[in-house]
């Protein structure tokens, strides 16, 4: 394995400058408590004026009255490193972070695609330059050695273990990425280069400086396998779009939305996943964003399908204020199971288009609008037919006697003129277990207009209280 290390010596500063409108003006990153702020990093213009890292803010103002101050945000730096890891992931499947300023990637497997190394290196450097990061790159057989070499000597290349120790020898200890307190101890011992450290007996080194240093050396020379947690692309998708004008009606949103959903679909197909639930946020100039949650019954990654879904939902939204931005968040990304098709199917794509139709109807009419029916083993008619969002299998039949095809949600008093009784009575007496006790005699009646009704009378009541409960339609 060959590891390329990319060390970013000015990561925090680059992160600020790459988004800055006037990066040529003097600028300094400051850190520390409010009373004692010190400079963490300065750009070229500030350095030319005499500012340097570690200087107090007051002293810096004495040297240069006018310069821009940015507070250092450690979390932002971590995000930048994640961004760079995501970028490196396109060149290699093995990407790891080293410390707070380096990314290492295994390139031997990728040489066939991007190689040879000089060309590969050019690609990396061109990308980093476009991204706006100052960088140092080196190649070595172990990830740690690559980082050390990159810190010490930009562009260094070692491809075999035999030359590794020899190449690392002249590296000064302060560039060797060892724990800082030990570096000062070594300096006072007169040990300034890695070569001197290599020549010391290992056992006494371990005794005096601890196992951490020893394992660092072993990692460096590849004597111990360097098992690092590799970078994994995040399991979420986020896209953000700001408009520099206000949008008051949703048709104007459709075009940017289509691109955004297209990005999501590309992302999903790259990781061979689907999306089941995602959120579309309409950002307003002020106030909370309007959030639309779109849920699907099964994972999908078809851009047209997802777009139709968004459009159906957008059409129903009443915009409280003009829109300044659009945000798409997808956190629930389950594996995608493509619809299997029969080899000899006559009507191809039938089930997938039913899925699409189902989602389209739900998007416009609400998630609860589409129902399926499930019989439930309860003698009381109002409990024996349930609605569920989706049936997975054909439910078992209940084997009840004659029942109406329509059931009224609530029994209502029977007012129509009865011409004859066709069937009945059928006694239904149940529900003692949950308090919803019923004692009813059901009849099938026919009205003078020819309608057939399912009507009941409570047991023990003689006259008057006939209730309509269903229709034999």
């Amino acid at each position, binding site marked *: 394995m060959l590891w390329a290390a990319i060390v970013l010596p000015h990561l925090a500063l680059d992160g600020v400058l790459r988004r800055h409108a006037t990066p040529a003006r003097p600028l300094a990153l400051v850190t520390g408590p409010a009373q004692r702020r010190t400079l963490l990093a300065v750009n070229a213009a500030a350095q030319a004026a005499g500012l340097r890292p570690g200087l107090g803010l007051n002293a810096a103002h004495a040297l240069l009255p006018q310069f821009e101050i940015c507070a250092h945000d450690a979390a932002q730096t971590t995000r930048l490193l994640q961004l760079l890891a995501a970028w490196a992931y396109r060149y290699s499947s093995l990407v790891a972070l080293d410390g707070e300023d380096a990314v290492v990637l295994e390139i031997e497997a990728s040489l066939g695609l991007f190689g040879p190394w000089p060309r590969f290196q050019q690609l990396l450097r061109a990308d980093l330059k476009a991204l706006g990061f100052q960088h140092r790159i080196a190649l070595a057989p172990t990830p740690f050695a690559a980082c050390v070499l990159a810190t010490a000597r930009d562009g260094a290349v070692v491809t075999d273990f035999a030359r590794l120790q020899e190449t690392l020898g002249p590296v000064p200890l302060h560039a060797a990425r060892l724990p800082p307190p030990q570096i000062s101890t070594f300096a006072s011992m007169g040990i300034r280069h890695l070569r001197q450290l290599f020549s010391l007996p290992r056992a006494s080194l371990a005794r005096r400086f601890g196992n951490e240093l020893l394992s660092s050396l072993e990692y460096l020379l590849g004597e111990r396998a360097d098992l690092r947690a590799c970078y994994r692309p995040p399991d979420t998708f986020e896209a953000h779009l700001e408009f520099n004008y206000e949008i008051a009606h949703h048709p104007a949103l459709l075009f940017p939305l289509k691109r955004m959903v297209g990005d999501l679909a590309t992302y999903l197909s790259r990781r061979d996943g689907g999306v089941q639930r995602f959120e579309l946020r309409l950002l307003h100039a002020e106030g909370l964003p309007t959030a639309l949650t779109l849920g699907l019954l099964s994972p999908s990654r078809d851009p047209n399908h997802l777009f139709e879904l968004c459009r159906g939902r957008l059409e129903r939204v009443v915009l409280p204020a003009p829109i300044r931005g659009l945000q798409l968040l997808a956190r629930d990304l389950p594996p995608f199971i493509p619809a299997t098709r029969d080899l000899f199917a006559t009507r191809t794509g039938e089930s997938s288009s*039913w899925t699409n139709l189902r989602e389209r109807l739900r998007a416009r009419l609400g998630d609860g609008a*589409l129902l399926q*029916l499930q019989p439930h083993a309860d003698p009381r008619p109002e409990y024996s037919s349930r609605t569920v969002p989706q049936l997975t299998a054909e439910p078992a*039949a209940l084997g009840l006697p004659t029942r109406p095809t329509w059931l009224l949600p609530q029994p209502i008093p029977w007012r129509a003129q009865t011409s004859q009784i066709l069937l009945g009575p059928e006694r239904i007496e149940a529900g003692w277990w949950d308090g919803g006790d019923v004692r009813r005699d059901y009849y099938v009646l026919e009205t003078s207009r020819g309608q057939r009704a399912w009507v009941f009378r409570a047991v023990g009541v003689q006259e008057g209280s006939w209730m309509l409960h269903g*229709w*034999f339609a």
Partner: protein
Amino acid sequence: MKTPSPTLAALLQKQQVWRGPAATFENSLAHCATGFHALDAALPLHGWPAAGLVEILSAAAGLGELSLVLPVLATLSAQQKPILIIAPPYRPYAPAWQRAGVRLAYLHVLEAADHEAPWAMEQALRAGCCGAVLAWLAQADDKPLRRLQVAADSGQTLGFVFRPPQVARNPSPAPLRVSVESTPTGTTLRVLKCRGRNPPLNSIPLRSALLH
């Protein structure tokens, strides 16, 4: 010199005479049996069309208007085709539908407001993935129905529209219109319009006054 009078075949060959689609009509359209022999015999296709809009006019619930379509729904659901019921007047009662042979796993009920129901039905018909789409459109006039008819044709799907009998005298784009009527001897069925043939004059008994 006298020019010979053109023969019929020659005229047809020149494509100057337009022929009605009657010949292709019978051949091209498949059908599904209604489950009622008398109705099958009365209809030009000997059953419901496999694709197209069927209008069922019924004065009130409980006349047997659903029993008219349950056999075909049972057949279609047994073929594992989804059946969509849009804006029904009441909740379908699962045990009874299951008893009628409809497979509930393929039965879907969509609750929609009156103004959304035609849209939903058009989407479902056009998608072409449903076995049958049923909708109760009390408010719709012939304009949405025309859209639905076109959608049913393009999606090759069978659609049933249930409407009140007052609209019987208005023209309708549906190729088949059936009215469920109550008579002293039971409910009967009258075919108001059927494409491909004059509607039969006599009505067809649907349900006799005595429970069978």
